[in-house]
């Protein structure tokens, strides 16, 4: 007789993943005391109540020109995604061949859309060029990577069946592209949804999309108006598959051209000066190396900001993991009654559609500028997103023993099959969470975004650019770590894998 193994002992893949996850959670708990989780606001519950009232009784009459804001939001998202895809596709063809292309894509991906917007704002002002470039440039990097991964998985059989001597282009057009077309299209659709959120967020830096009006309404306490804008945004996202149908794509793109604007007068000389001079530390341009030391010493304290960013990203990732574990049964057909499942799905859709910066902004108004609202926002948005995908995965499974009690179905039937996928999704999201964490600094949380935003405000472009580079480097490092940590051999056909 062999004795039963001890706690968490054994070599099964499930136990390995459980040990890994628990280690991650333990690390987060150990570091938690270092985080600033105070509630600074005076009356958080009263504030929440007023917001809830505004959301329940939205005041559509108070909106000024909402149609213009809606049209601009959609137009920017549409053209930003389109240009990104046009730029990203050729890069995808070179992706696996050129290290240079890979690094370039990793770099443009690693900087959040809003940071790009801040950068272009300095040259192109509050114009359509700023908005489009802010979306198209990082999306080109994302598309290049994801398209390349999809193309790599092209089935080989049709290409092998071709007669010998077929030229490369014909081979690609007939025996490769059609085989992955659906997947490319569905990823592009998903990215367009992300672009809708990002386009709203561009309002936070002053571009007149929905976010601009949302921010001022929230900031000035006009919650009825804010509620109305939120409802409009949810309605836009919920009806996306009707108005965003592929047959309507061309008319939409053409129509959107009329709403994009204003177009800036670009001063070539100024642009060149910005790129060649303003972005770089002046000692570096003058070849004055000792001066560079002084310049570095003049930077704001970076280490606490980096520490905070890493800590918040870890907390956000672990929070998403725990929330996803708790929330996915809400939207799954295996649990509860059908109407409960419907309600759960709606809840998750609303939570994942709300841009995390928006969520953080609302929570920040409620709780004050500590790390707590940022953490909640990251965990809620990403946890809901992962839970939604996991629930969809679960709905595709058939239970071997459907008569088990709910806890048995959760722990024995479903979780063992879903968990590798869930953990892989969390690892993929870790990079996204990291990008967002840095960004949340713009709201006053003490991460890098705070210093980047203030450097731009004080027109210290060299500092801002340097901080952006540091942020990008950190993000690339986190991506590498999470890639190592994530479970391998998991079939990931989820749209949010990037």
């Amino acid at each position, binding site marked *: 007789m062999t004795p039963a193994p001890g706690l968490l002992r054994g070599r099964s893949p499930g136990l390995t993943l459980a040990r890994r996850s628990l280690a991650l959670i333990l690390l987060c708990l150990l570091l938690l005391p270092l985080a600033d989780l105070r509630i600074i606001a005076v009356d958080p519950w009263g504030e929440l109540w007023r917001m809830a009232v505004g959301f329940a009784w939205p005041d559509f009459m108070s909106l000024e020109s909402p149609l213009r804001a809606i049209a601009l939001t959609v137009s920017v998202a549409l053209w930003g995604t389109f240009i990104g895809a046009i730029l990203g596709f050729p890069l995808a063809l070179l992706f696996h061949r050129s290290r240079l292309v890979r690094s370039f894509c990793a770099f443009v991906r690693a900087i959040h859309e809003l940071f790009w917007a801040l950068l272009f704002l300095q040259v192109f002002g509050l114009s359509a060029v700023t908005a489009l470039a802010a979306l198209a440039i990082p999306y080109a990097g994302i598309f290049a990577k994801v398209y390349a991964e999809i193309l790599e998985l092209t089935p080989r059989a049709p290409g092998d*069946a*071709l*007669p010998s001597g077929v030229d490369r282009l*014909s081979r690609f057009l007939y025996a490769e592209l059609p085989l992955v077309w659906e997947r490319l299209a569905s990823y592009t659709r998903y990215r367009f949804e992300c672009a809708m959120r990002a386009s709203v967020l561009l309002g936070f830096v002053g571009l007149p999309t929905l976010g601009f009006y949302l921010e001022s309404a929230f900031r000035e306490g006009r919650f009825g108006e804010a509620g109305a804008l939120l409802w409009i945004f949810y309605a836009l996202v919920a009806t996306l598959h009707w108005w965003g149908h592929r047959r309507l794509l061309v008319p939409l793109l053409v129509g959107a051209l009329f709403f994009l604007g204003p177009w800036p007068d670009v001063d070539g000389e100024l642009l060149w000066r910005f790129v060649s001079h303003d972005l770089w530390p002046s000692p570096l341009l003058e070849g004055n190396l000792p001066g560079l030391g002084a310049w570095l010493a003049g930077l704001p304290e970076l280490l606490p900001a980096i520490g905070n960013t890493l800590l918040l990203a870890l907390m956000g990732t672990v929070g998403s993991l725990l929330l996803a574990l708790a929330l996915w049964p809400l939207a799954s057909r295996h649990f509860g009654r059908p109407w409960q499942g419907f309600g759960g799905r709606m809840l998750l859709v609303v939570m994942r559609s709300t841009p995390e910066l928006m969520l953080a902004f609302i929570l920040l108004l409620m709780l004050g500028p500590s790390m707590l609202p940022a953490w909640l926002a990251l965990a809620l948005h990403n946890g809901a997103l992962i839970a939604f995908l996991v629930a969809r995965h679960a709905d595709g499974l058939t239970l071997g023993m459907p008569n088990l009690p709910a806890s048995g179905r959760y722990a024995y039937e479903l979780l063992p099959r879903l968990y590798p996928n869930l953990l892989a999704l969390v690892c993929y999201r870790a990079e996204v969470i990291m990008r967002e964490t840095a960004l949340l600094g713009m709201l006053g949380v003490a991460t890098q975004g705070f210093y980047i935003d203030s450097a731009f405000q004080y027109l210290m472009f060299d500092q801002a650019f340097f901080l952006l580079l540091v942020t990008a480097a950190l993000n690339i490092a986190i991506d590498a770590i999470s890639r190592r940590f994530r479970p391998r051999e998991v079939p990931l056909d989820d749209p949010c894998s990037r």
Partner: protein
Amino acid sequence: MSLLELDRVDLGHGTQVVLPGLSLTFESGERVALLGQSGAGKSTLLAEIRRRLDSAAAWCPQGHGLVPLLAVYHNVYMGRLERHGALTNLINLLKPRREAWKEIEHLVRELGLEGLLRRPVAQLSGGQRQRVAIARALYQQRNVFLGDEPLASVDPHQARRLLECIQARHATCIIALHQHRLALDHFDRVIGLRDGQVVLDAPTRELTLARLDALYPDAGPPHHEAGVAAST
């Protein structure tokens, strides 16, 4: 006239040898049936013959190798993709070439696919896809027809018709199949493979159904029935 000679060659994929020390000769104008259980080495042998004959042979692969999103017309057109420039092929995707359309329409009518030219292959049944794959190989217009189980997913009656269609256009053919009755009735020679060895190589007039069934020791009755069904 000898078409192809294999003299004590080791065939396989990568470092794994599937058919060691193989010696076989194929003649022009010969109709050869390849028999044997799955995994016996039929596909490996056919791949090598295809490699050696290159553009002299039309090829109908196992599992069809079709592109589901493209229409039947385009899938068949792919058989001659190498004979046109990239630009012509690109335009053909958007607007079918008139003469190619006519020729392919004629061809698929013979195979019982009339009216399906515009339909994406994804929407066809297994048997219809099989016929599209055969149409593509016929469209190549080569001297030799090489087929890796091109009759696997059609009923016995159709299998006979399709085989006649193939053989009317190709004096020389080397085809892997499982229907024993068809092998005896429509081929000049049968090669039987088992575990990487040639265990049978004889003219069909010297063979009987029972001898062919012996190639499938694990299976027994079902294959025999399939063979009988094919003869009705």
